[in-house]
């Protein structure tokens, strides 16, 4: 499944990184604490968060994530969009809150990693 499939399935709005929407999604991670995402997300994961500042792009770039979905209809800061365009990180927006969004992603086959 690609990021574009998720966008289409849930009618997400795309704010940045359109050129990388065909990236394959390997799983998902949901957290609003950046160091937690650094520690536990995996390459190609889609990340669900309510953080909107530019450091989410730094984290997604470092971890080579497939994209970021902002839950609860949150809008990214202007400098977040700019940085995401530079780094080619898709930023998507869903009106759903994190719990609902993760549940729906799980239903279409996006799963998380079990703790080791």
């Amino acid at each position: 499944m690609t990021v574009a499939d998720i966008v289409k399935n849930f009618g997400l709005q795309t704010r940045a990184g359109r050129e990388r929407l065909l990236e394959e999604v390997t799983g998902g991670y949901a957290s609003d604490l950046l160091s937690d995402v650094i520690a536990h997300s995996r390459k190609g994961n889609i990340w669900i968060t309510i953080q909107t500042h530019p450091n989410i792009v730094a984290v997604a770039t470092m971890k080579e994530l497939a994209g970021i979905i902002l839950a609860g209809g949150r809008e990214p800061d202007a400098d977040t969009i700019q940085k995401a365009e530079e780094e080619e990180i898709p930023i998507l927006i869903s009106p759903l809150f994190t719990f609902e969004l993760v549940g729906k992603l799980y239903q279409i086959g996006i799963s998380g990693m079990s703790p080791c």
Partner: protein
Amino acid sequence: MDGTENNILIHKTFHIEGGNFQNAGLISDQVKKILKEAGLPKKVIRRTSIATFEAEMNVICYAQRGNLSLFITPNFLKVVVEDEGHGIPDINLAMSDGYSTADEKIREWGFGAGMGLPNIRRNTDEMVLTSKFREGTHLEFIIYLDRQENMLPFE
């Protein structure tokens, strides 16, 4: 951790302003650019970026000011971060996953998970942390450039 003085190919020092959350991540971005330009392996760049990002955030969250110095030699890269700030009363506790003294403001920005120092340890080959409570913290870490596991492409 000796030998830094010999064969230094690149040395650069950056100033970090404590409490400046808006510009957080800028220093680690610059370090990453230097490593990319130096043509270092992708895995070295990824590990260094994570460790540097976490170190920078610690200064922003818990210090008034600090400096981050990057040294690159043919065999390893070393980062030294010194700050004037809160300091760490119990380093063993601070190194454990999930322990944090972050206040509400820090958490609002998505920091203070209590995983910064463990993330640094996991992504470096050597790490030394010393601190004087209410004075400041000194962190050094090394990532080897001549180790096979660091040369591998991203897993």
